[in-house]
């Protein structure tokens, strides 16, 4: 094959992939749950962007009175130091989403690599990797997170790192099972016979076919990451001066928001987490339904 042929081939291939992606997006928007999921998550992203540019106050400014219920100047009231809850929420949404997406990307990379390698190469490699996965799945996750976070420096990066290295085992099992079944297909056999190396087959023939599954799992990893980071912050771990949904709840608990009946301080971060979870569930289910060939288009 000449180099010109290869160029044409690659152009054809990429344009067809873009078309397939566009087509998939179109179907997703026409899917009821898919649309709902996209709208919810997009609104949260919008809130985060508003938080970056238009937060009404500096979240650490303490000029107002403490524990003020919602009013015109402070739409969501103030916290124990007189800090503006709305500003905390707007800015915190961005931080929490960023944490969730980082964890989703990092742990999806680890999970996919481990799963594909274990499934494709099999044998001793598979055995060792899956034993590691088994042990990580058996050890109760939260206490393990707590002990690691307690000994590592209390920064947001540490929390992302710890959550990423502990969140992938379930995904790797799913990917391994899928890889095992893909491995039996004719076209993989053809690639093997044509002399392609294992890593080329993995990157060209296997991973592209797993993208819907990886995407669905990454969405749930993001939700799990947001909830787990909030839980860790609530437990007093990580960077407690970072502005996010988890630290809002931590300070509410630590500074007796309950005693002051400060519902305006308690509701926003929790509702943010719940909205993100519901949006992700809708989107994940929609992608799942659309990626099943037999049931595609089911609303």
């Amino acid at each position, binding site marked *: 094959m000449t180099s010109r042929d290869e160029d044409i081939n690659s152009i054809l291939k990429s344009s067809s992939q873009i078309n397939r992606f566009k087509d998939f997006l179109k179907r997703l928007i026409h899917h009821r749950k898919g649309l709902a999921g996209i709208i919810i998550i997009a609104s949260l992203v919008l809130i985060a962007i508003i938080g970056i540019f238009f937060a009404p106050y500096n979240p650490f400014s303490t000029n107002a009175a403490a524990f003020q219920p919602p009013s015109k100047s402070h739409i969501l009231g103030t916290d124990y130091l007189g800090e503006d809850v709305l500003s905390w929420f707007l800015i915190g949404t961005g931080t929490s989403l960023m944490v969730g997406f980082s964890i989703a990307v990092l742990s999806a990379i680890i999970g996919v690599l481990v799963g594909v390698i274990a499934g494709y190469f099999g044998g001793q490699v598979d055995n060792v990797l899956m034993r590691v996965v088994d042990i990580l799945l058996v050890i*109760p996750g939260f206490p393990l997170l707590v002990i690691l976070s*307690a000994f590592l420096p209390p920064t947001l990066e540490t929390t992302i790192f710890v959550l990423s290295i502990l969140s992938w085992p379930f995904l790797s099992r799913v990917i391994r099972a899928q890889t095992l079944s893909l491995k039996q297909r004719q076209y993989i056999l053809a690639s093997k016979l044509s002399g392609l190396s294992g890593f080329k087959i993995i990157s060209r023939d296997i991973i592209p076919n797993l993208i819907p599954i990886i995407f669905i799992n990454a969405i749930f990893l993001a939700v799990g990451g947001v909830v787990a980071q909030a839980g860790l912050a*609530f437990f007093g771990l990580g960077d407690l001066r970072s502005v996010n949904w988890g630290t809002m709840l931590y300070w509410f608990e630590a500074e007796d928001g309950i005693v002051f009946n400060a*519902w305006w301080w308690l509701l926003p971060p929790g509702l943010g987490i*719940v909205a993100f979870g519901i949006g992700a*569930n809708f989107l994940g289910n929609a992608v799942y339904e659309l990626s099943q060939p037999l049931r595609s288009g089911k609303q």
Partner: protein
Amino acid sequence: MITLRYIVRRVAYMLLTIYIAATLDFLLPRMVPGNPALIILITKYAGEFNPNQLKIIEGELNLRGTLWQQYVGYLGSIIHGNLGPSYYYYPESVTQIIITRLPWTLFLLGTAMIISVVIGVIIGSYSGWKRGYSDSFLQAFSIGLTSLPYFWLALIFQLVFAVMLVINGQHLFPVAQAYSINVHQGFNLRFIESVLHHAALPLITLIITTFPGFALLMRNTVVTVLDEDYLVLAKAKGLSINTIRKRYVNKNAMLPVSTSIALAFASIVGGAFLVEEVFSYPGIGYTLFTAVTVSDYPLIEGIFLVITLTVILANFAVDLIYAYLDPRVVLK
């Protein structure tokens, strides 16, 4: 059927997991700079101590000798059930602290798990059998509930039922603790009543967030079982709907639910810990929270080890029960 080989392999595997958890416990504090023995002396005795005391505490913490000697010493003391002294509660030992706190956590976890499974099985069976509205309601309900953070729900319940709502000049539920200070601890009616009253909100929080998972699984397996050939036979035999439902559908559909209990255990522990923190419930979750706040590393490590052991044993027990319930299962 359970073979001896299975039990031996499984026990070996549990020992390996515990060994890994213990090694993690050993390595983590040694990666952090500073001498822990000095920390105890400085916080407890405000720096007024003699070198002998330092040596004694270093011994208790397995800080003497080479790293390898420390490691062997550490594993040895764990085997003897000795988890070392707590920094914060010194000279009380970590083992003593955990023994007094663990029963409260087991009580919460066990009760919440049993009630969640029962509710989940009943609702799931009904929804899978009837389909239609109850089905879509269950789906929407469980999606909403599974994304609820346990501790946030606990805070809401605490705010509404223990602070805001006042009936006849009294709050509906206590804000914190496991029993009222006015009652005598022991086996008497007032104590039990007080314990249940205090456990109500933590339990409701855990149950509400745990049962939808079981309900959804039960519903899905009921739907699968309804397609089985043996149900056609049962109908052809003219058995009553009730008999078919109880003896054919529910019995078979409950099996996958019982395996999922094991996985649910590992995740409900985190929820229970956070709920304990909210209600200052004196179990090991609240103790862990306190330990984190005061950097009591030996106590953090000890709790990690004990809760890992507890979860592993619970999983093992569930597997054995499963094999006993379903004769088709062969654990070898």
